[in-house]
């Protein structure tokens, strides 16, 4: 800033900024401090800042006593696992959208697809009508509807690439409660409740749009000429993606994964509703402190600090990606 500001103004701004920053950060700071106090000190009023007997007993208590290791393990496996799978699905999709986009949908193909869609719907409706009461069993109507949707899916795939991307993003905006009931019932029927696979699947689906979107933006920055050179050099598609695209996009992939892991780690809807004790991650573990017995504040603080520490670190590393990913690029 070229303009000189008065010393008074600068001091004022600094004091104000730090005061506000401190206030905002305070709950986290207080939690970390409390985690090192004894329960009595933690519960003491007025709150103790100094004459505190600092201790690690809470951490020991949380790590030994409760099932903390299992919950931490679940958080780690779910966050990383779901997003790695998501990455494997998203990289090809982002490649397709960045380097083989549909600019103008093929009109002849579209017309054929409309006809196919109509035919499929009519056929499916007829079958459902004819089979009578069996139609209420989702194991029966499920596959029928799924097959009838094939033309629709193909139609979606062949639309203009920006439109397809927007549609994918829109799936992220559906509130979980909108599908809580059928998901829960399906999970119950398929024995997926309280399984890491089940929750992981939900986490993957929630993040897939964002991962695809972010990879797409990073891939667009790679000059297509280099991929063409690889093709001229005899690289198959797989080679092109593995040996040329992915190494060049490594920073972008890392950024995307960072954001995705953070979002999954903190996800607090499906992780709370679809797990009980086997697959529950740290979000659920902390939630169990909402109905405690006896003094527990220090232990809550210790458990909380353990639960949030990794993400605080990751989050500090990923601020830029946060803006890019969470605003879907609308803010640069």
């Amino acid at each position, binding site marked *: 800033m070229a303009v000189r500001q008065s010393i008074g103004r600068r001091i004022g701004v600094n004091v104000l900024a730090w005061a506000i920053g401190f206030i905002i950060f305070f709950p986290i700071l207080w939690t970390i401090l409390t985690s090192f106090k004894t329960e009595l000190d933690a519960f003491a009023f007025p709150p103790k800042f100094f004459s505190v007997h600092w201790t690690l007993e809470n951490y020991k208590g949380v790590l030994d006593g409760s099932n903390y290791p299992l919950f931490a393990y679940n958080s780690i496996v779910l966050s990383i696992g779901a997003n790695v799978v998501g990455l494997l699905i998203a990289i090809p999709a982002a490649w397709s959208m960045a380097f083989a986009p549909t600019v*103008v949908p093929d009109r002849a193909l579209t017309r054929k697809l409309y006809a196919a869609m109509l035919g499929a719907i009519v056929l499916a409706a007829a079958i459902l009508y004819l089979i009578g009461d069996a139609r209420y069993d989702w194991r029966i109507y499920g596959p029928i509807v799924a097959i009838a949707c094939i033309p629709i899916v193909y139609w979606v795939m062949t639309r203009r690439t920006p439109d397809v991307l927007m549609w994918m993003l829109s799936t992220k905006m559906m509130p979980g409660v909108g599908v809580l009931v059928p998901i829960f019932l399906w999970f119950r029927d398929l024995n997926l409740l309280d399984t890491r696979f089940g929750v992981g699947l939900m986490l993957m689906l929630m993040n897939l749009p964002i991962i695809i979107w972010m990879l797409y933006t990073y891939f667009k920055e790679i*000059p297509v*000429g*280099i991929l*063409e*050179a*690889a*093709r*001229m*050099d*005899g*690289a*198959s598609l797989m*080679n092109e993606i593995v*040996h*040329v695209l992915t*190494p*060049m996009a*490594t920073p972008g992939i890392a950024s995307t994964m960072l954001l995705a892991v953070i979002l999954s780690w903190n996800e607090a809807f499906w992780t709370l509703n679809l797990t009980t004790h086997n697959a529950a991650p740290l979000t659920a573990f902390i939630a169990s402190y909402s109905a405690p017995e006896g003094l527990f504040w220090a232990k809550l603080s210790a458990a909380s600090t353990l639960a949030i520490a990794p993400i605080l670190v990751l989050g500090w590393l990923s601020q830029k990606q946060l803006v890019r990913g969470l605003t879907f690029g609308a803010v640069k």
Partner: protein
Amino acid sequence: MGSIELQQVRKSFGAVNIIKGVDLEIKNGEFVVFVGPSGCGKSTLLRLIAGLEDVTGGKVVIDGKDATDLGPAQRGLAMVFQSYALYPHMSVRNNIAFPLKMAKAPKDIIDAKVKRAAATLNLTDYLDRRPGQLSGGQRQRVAIGRAIVREPSAFLFDEPLSNLDAALRVQMRLEIGELHNALKTTMIYVTHDQVEAMTMADKIVVLDLGAIAQVGAPLDLYNRPDNLFVARFIGSPTMNIAKGPSAAKRGADSIGIRPEHTDISTTAGEWPGTVRIAEHLGSETFVYVDVDGVGPFTVRVDGEAPLHTDDRVFLNPREPRLHKFNAAGQRIAA
């Protein structure tokens, strides 16, 4: 090895016809240059040969086999891109080795071929550097090295010298020419610079809006352009074209005479005019004249000439070097 044939090749993007029915035969070992103004489709034609774009119609035949439906990797060609398209995350050595790795060649063969290519192109000292650490000329050599190791039937060059400065361009032009002499492989070279075309080519293909205007050896195009387009494209400065009485009296709709074949006199001549500007280069002089009733003409005079703005002069064409064109712009035989 190395013969390429295009049969009625067409390419459209949607409703726009970029390439309109091109027939072309390239013999093994030829250095063919595709040349033409921006938008004439020369790069597109090259990419069609490479397999990076699909033809809308027609056939691409490589070494006697129909390659129209083959992907770029299966056509046995190598391409040097305008932007070099080097792999930024790989060393020079790995860049050059990449095609061989893709072909699953054994390691010792890869090492040997990379060494040889590097030696040919003076890259041995740079093998372990990354593209980002190289100069433009060095990067270009790496791109060429990557193409060489494939031992392709033909090399495709897409305006490779456009990103280099003038001095480097001249040097690289010579090196590519020497490469061709050494390897004797077919080379197809795209450029908008007709000087590059004239100096490097065995055969020039002049393209105009997606169609071939003329195919021939450089001097053939210079001495016997088939149409006005080629006449004006080849040769620098551009050929002077005159319509009206001077053309009519020679039985043509328009006539052309190159600046270097036009004589200028202060006393008498066929075309009177006024000097607009005279550029004195010492070795030669370019005189820009507004010819009365005809238009702007350029004259090239060897050595120095005592001509200045607003001088009245007379221009005379050297008849044997005059070109005649009909109303459709086609050459009329002399």
